[in-house]
């Protein structure tokens, strides 16, 4: 077991109102060595907060209030600042959506990568140079161009250079948070291929965070679907796509346009996620769920095994029957009778809350 996230709870506090937002609420999952694990969810569901909690790079108002993050058995949440700094880059690499904007415009790429090495290791000049050349080849950029400045690279190349930089010290875990969201499909395709290749070659594990289900389908061995700070479903990627159990996953499948298959009209999920300030003890998807029963509003269902290595947090699977659930979830009427309002029944209340939530509630995922 490389990474073990155990009942993680991360909160943000608004300094002016003292309101607390529970961005991640009791999330657990594990990543094996060499495995690639996908975390999908909508903006504001807490997926990036998980990445930041693992890296311990939360903003000042963010706090891990419960749970553990174990890397090779060692709890990262307990570490002091200096040992934690040593873990970053050496053991865990982080590639963010805007990574390409993190390059310093006044230094060459080569200088910046070497600076990162020097912060952690004392390698000879030759060794550093060899390593940079090797990595440029791995991410498919002509090594001659390592002496270029960032403005001489295209967006896709910058992102690839950042990947090279993140991997320079051979980390055990790569966390990629929307690594291709700002790029077009062709650059995305190239980068995903390189990531996959690098991962196989180095034997590193990967946590891939994205809102794009098709990226996860292509890249990951196992997948967790996240909704409003909690995991809705977790299992082998193939099972999540072919035999989903949670109504939210079923809904996402309907809403997702595909390049293949029939051009049926897509079905959206009515409503919007609930505010994460003082969440009630209830299923967070209940207000948008066509299968919700009174019990869903009185207690928050825990993750339960539904198949081999496959868990879902839904209390209604047995009562409704999964076959019936899947059948009904494929029809538009079922979803759009939940509420008459088109998009967002709780719009006003959500909007008001959104204004007071300190971080990342809206507009996160762009393309």
């Amino acid at each position: 077991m490389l990474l073990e996230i155990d009942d993680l709870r991360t909160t943000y506090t608004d300094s002016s109102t003292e309101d607390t937002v529970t961005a991640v609420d009791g999330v657990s999952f594990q990543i094996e060595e060499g495995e690639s694990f996908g975390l999908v969810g909508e903006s504001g569901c807490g997926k990036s907060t998980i990445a930041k909690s693992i890296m311990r790079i939360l903003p000042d108002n963010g706090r891990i209030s419960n749970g553990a993050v174990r890397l090779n058995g060692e709890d990262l949440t307990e570490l002091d600042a200096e040992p934690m700094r040593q873990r970053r880059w050496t053991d865990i690499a982080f590639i963010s959506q805007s990574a390409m904007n993190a390059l310093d415009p006044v230094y060459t790429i080569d200088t910046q990568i070497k600076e990162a090495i020097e912060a952690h290791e004392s390698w000879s000049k030759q060794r550093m140079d060899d390593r940079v050349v090797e990595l440029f080849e791995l991410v498919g950029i002509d090594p001659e161009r390592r002496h270029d400045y960032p403005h001489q690279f295209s967006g896709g190349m910058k992102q690839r250079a950042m990947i090279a930089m993140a991997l320079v010290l051979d980390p055990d875990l790569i966390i990629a948070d929307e690594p291709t969201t700002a790029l077009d499909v062709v650059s995305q395709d190239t980068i995903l291929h390189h990531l996959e290749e690098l991962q196989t070659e180095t034997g590193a594990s990967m946590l891939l965070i994205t809102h794009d289900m098709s990226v996860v389908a292509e890249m990951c061995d196992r997948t967790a679907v996240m909704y409003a700070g909690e995991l809705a479903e977790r299992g082998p990627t193939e099972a999540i796509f072919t035999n989903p159990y949670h109504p939210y996953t079923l809904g996402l499948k309907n809403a997702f346009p595909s390049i293949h298959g029939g051009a049926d009209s897509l079905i959206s999920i009515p409503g919007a996620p609930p505010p994460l300030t003082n969440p009630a003890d209830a299923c967070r998807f209940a207000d948008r769920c066509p299968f919700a029963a009174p019990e869903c509003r009185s207690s928050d269902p825990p993750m339960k095994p539904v198949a081999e290595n496959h868990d879902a947090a839904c209390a209604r699977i047995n009562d409704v029957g999964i076959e019936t659930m899947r059948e009904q979830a494929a029809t538009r009427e079922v979803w759009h009778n939940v509420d008459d309002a088109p998009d967002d029944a709780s719009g006003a209340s959500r909007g008001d809350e959104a204004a007071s939530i300190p971080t990342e509630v809206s507009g996160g995922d762009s393309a």
Partner: protein
Amino acid sequence: MTVLELDDASKFFRTQTGLGALLSRDQEYIKAVNDVSLQLDDGEIVGLVGESGCGKTTLGKVVMRIHELTDGEITLHGRPIEEYGRKEYFQEVQMVFQDPFKSLNPQMTVREQLAEPLKVHGHDDRKARIRESLEFANLTPPDQYLDRYPHEISGGEKQRVAVARALVLDPSVVIADEPVSMLDVSIRAGVLNLFRQLAEERDVTILYISHDLATVRHICTEIAVMYLGKVMEYGPTEQICSTPSHPYTERLLSATPVADPTQDRSKVVYDQEVPDPVDLPDGCFFKHRCEFATEACDEEEMHLRPPAKAESANEDWLMACHRAADTDLDWETIPSHNL
């Protein structure tokens, strides 16, 4: 009936502007849009797809008259767009932008956002039009939304308000530039269906600009694939998606991720970088990245023409590739076709 027609439309930008342009002898140009011809009928949704930097957004801006044409002609209802007065033109052509978080004025209520264009154009029946427009955009009942500010509604609703605002003048053309890429998947579908409804029920012509072929496929009747300012392939959506014939279209399709983990992605192509749009190569622009490139591609400029293959010949289907003349083009050998 043809509503909007682009005839060899081109837009070049100077690489130097201001004093630099006056002093330098050799003015260079970025050929952002290069001889593009499209025909949009009423109620048609034409998708404009391509990588970033291919000129698709510039083309949208040219039609919006944000940029002036360098060469060629664009006609609306048969009349060149320059002949229209500004007000008259924007009565007919409206736009929906990518980011509803930015395109709505945060200090105006929904009612004010929708009333603004009506005031500018001097319409008296504002109340009725605003209501009708909101209802069409599925923001019902309108009373619930009229007095809210953008921060009080969700992202999906914001984009619906943006669509309603574009509709309030009852335009015949709507240009939508990546209108759903900022929205979450679960609400994206609703906005996409709204565009479809707009074309089907109100006969609005939509130019839908996006790099995401999967969403384009869902709502567009025709697709134009752009690369370095030129249209590479143009035809009915199904034709383009199921039997892509231009190598670039194939590349785009095979790069689009598929939400099906059982599918094997065996095709791996590492792309050469795109040529510099200031210094375009002779012949086909795609030849450096093309696995089918021949000597002919170096010299001969490729023009759009229908593929020769008999049973697939379709008048509306055009491609700019020497392979168009190839009658033996074997669809089965095309990797993305076997997916």
